[in-house]
């Protein structure tokens, strides 16, 4: 049995008076795609930001490849962040740079000076997300789906060991969502990447997940395969899967 790549233990986070995460325990195995489901505003994105050290928990620990990362300083986190990529919900492209420079950014920051190498790698990365031909466009001129694809190209240009996806299909039409889901699967196959996908989109979950976790009230309420999720009889899981709010209409 492989050792988990990421171990999360009793993770607690508060924002103001509100306790967002109330003791999360979760393990991510190498090479798997783990989907974290949950209601909007339930703390999924907050949890994801902890995995890359963008937020510090109130208590609990996150161990990445045997290294406790919750106490690391900003500069000490940099080697970890070189191994973990993140796709932000709206892409978070640098709006002062065009598509080419956005995708080339991680390469240049890691010291790649040869323009030919940069050009080749950017072209390869954009081809992988079907964005060839858009190199000179500015982020403001891209649609939501295109922004996510470019952000994905930027995240994979120096292939990380782990890729974190924050709502990769949110706000996209079903066709673009499907192409993003296929892309996630393709990246996992081609680059053998470990992925953690935060979403509330069950179609996306069924498409990409090896395992599914359901976050409810700040805790992991369910952990299993997509098939186990579909067959679960637990009331909270059923409400989520069947899309029932539990509210009465008068």
């Amino acid at each position, binding site marked *: 049995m492989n050792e988990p790549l990421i171990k999360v233990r009793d993770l607690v986070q508060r924002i103001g008076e509100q306790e967002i995460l109330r003791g999360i325990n979760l393990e991510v195995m190498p090479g798997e795609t783990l989907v974290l489901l949950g209601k909007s505003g339930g703390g999924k994105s907050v949890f994801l*930001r902890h995995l*890359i*050290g*963008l937020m510090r928990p109130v208590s609990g620990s996150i161990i990445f490849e045997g290294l406790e990362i919750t106490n690391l300083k*900003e*500069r000490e*986190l*940099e*080697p970890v*962040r*070189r191994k*973990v*990529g*993140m796709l*932000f*919900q*709206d892409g*978070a*492209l*640098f*709006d*002062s740079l065009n598509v080419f420079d956005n995708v080339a*950014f*991680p390469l240049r*920051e890691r010291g790649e000076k040869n323009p030919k190498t940069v050009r080749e790698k950017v072209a390869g990365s954009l081809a992988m997300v079907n964005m060839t031909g858009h190199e000179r466009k500015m982020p403001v001129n891209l649609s939501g789906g295109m922004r996510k694809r470019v952000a994905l190209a*930027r995240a994979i240009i120096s292939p990380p060991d782990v890729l974190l996806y924050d709502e990769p299909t949110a706000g996209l039409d079903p066709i673009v969502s499907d192409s993003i889901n296929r892309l996630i699967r393709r990246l996992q196959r081609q680059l053998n990447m470990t992925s953690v996908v935060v979403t509330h989109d069950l179609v996306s979950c069924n498409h990409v997940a090896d395992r599914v976790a359901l976050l409810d009230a700040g805790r992991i309420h369910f952990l299993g395969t997509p098939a186990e999720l579909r067959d679960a009889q637990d009331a909270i899981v059923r409400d989520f899967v069947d899309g029932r709010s539990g509210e009465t209409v008068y």
Partner: protein
Amino acid sequence: MEVTFYLGGLFLGFLNFLGQLAVLAGETLSSIGRGRIRMRLTLQQIAEIGFRSQLVVIVTGAFTGAVFTAQAYFQFASLNMQTAVGPVVALSMFRELGPVLTGLMVAGRVGAAMSAEIGTMKVTQQIDALRALAVNPVDYLVVPRAVAMFISMPLLVVECVGCGVLASYYVGVEVLRINGVYFLANIQKFAEGSDIVMSLVKGFVFAGIIVFISCREGLYAKDGAVGVGRATTASVVNCSLSILIANFFLTMALNIVFPAGQR
């Protein structure tokens, strides 16, 4: 009781603000000391801060020198001391008006832009994206701006003072018919190298005030577009007030090192 809590809150907020500024300045200077300077970004910022601020600085310096000369002439003429106008204007420009006016204009033009740009990056998660890509935001965003500001501000102050003195000469000698030889001779007699040094020191300190306050406001921006607007306003107000307050203490301190009127 409520007033005490309110004032206590304000005081704690101020201490927090100072602490954040000190940490940001420390991190930035440490990065500069370790040579984490991106030359391309620094040159871009020198063009933005130094080159593109010239028009506003030239106009400010020239018209301040011109109007100050006219007012001084109107007062001094009744005492038959017209030739004292030159040194009065020159010393004022060197020691006070040049650095302060340049600081205020740069705070309005560049400081506001810095806060708005960095603040927008903050609220649209671009700064988180930098961090996620293992790029330190202070190294990438603040260091180039700080280096560019420390290089550009003293030069802009010199430009502002130079334009002020030239405008003063033109208005005094060509328009108001003050004797040009005496005008220049009196400037040479009363203005010293230490006045230029004082000007440059103030320019350098104001550069630090503008860049650290503006970047701090941007880096701590929140609540979307409203928050960016708030950060930009706070940046201009805080930079302007800090420059005016710091100028008083700098004047008192520098006057100990370079006493005025000792010749």
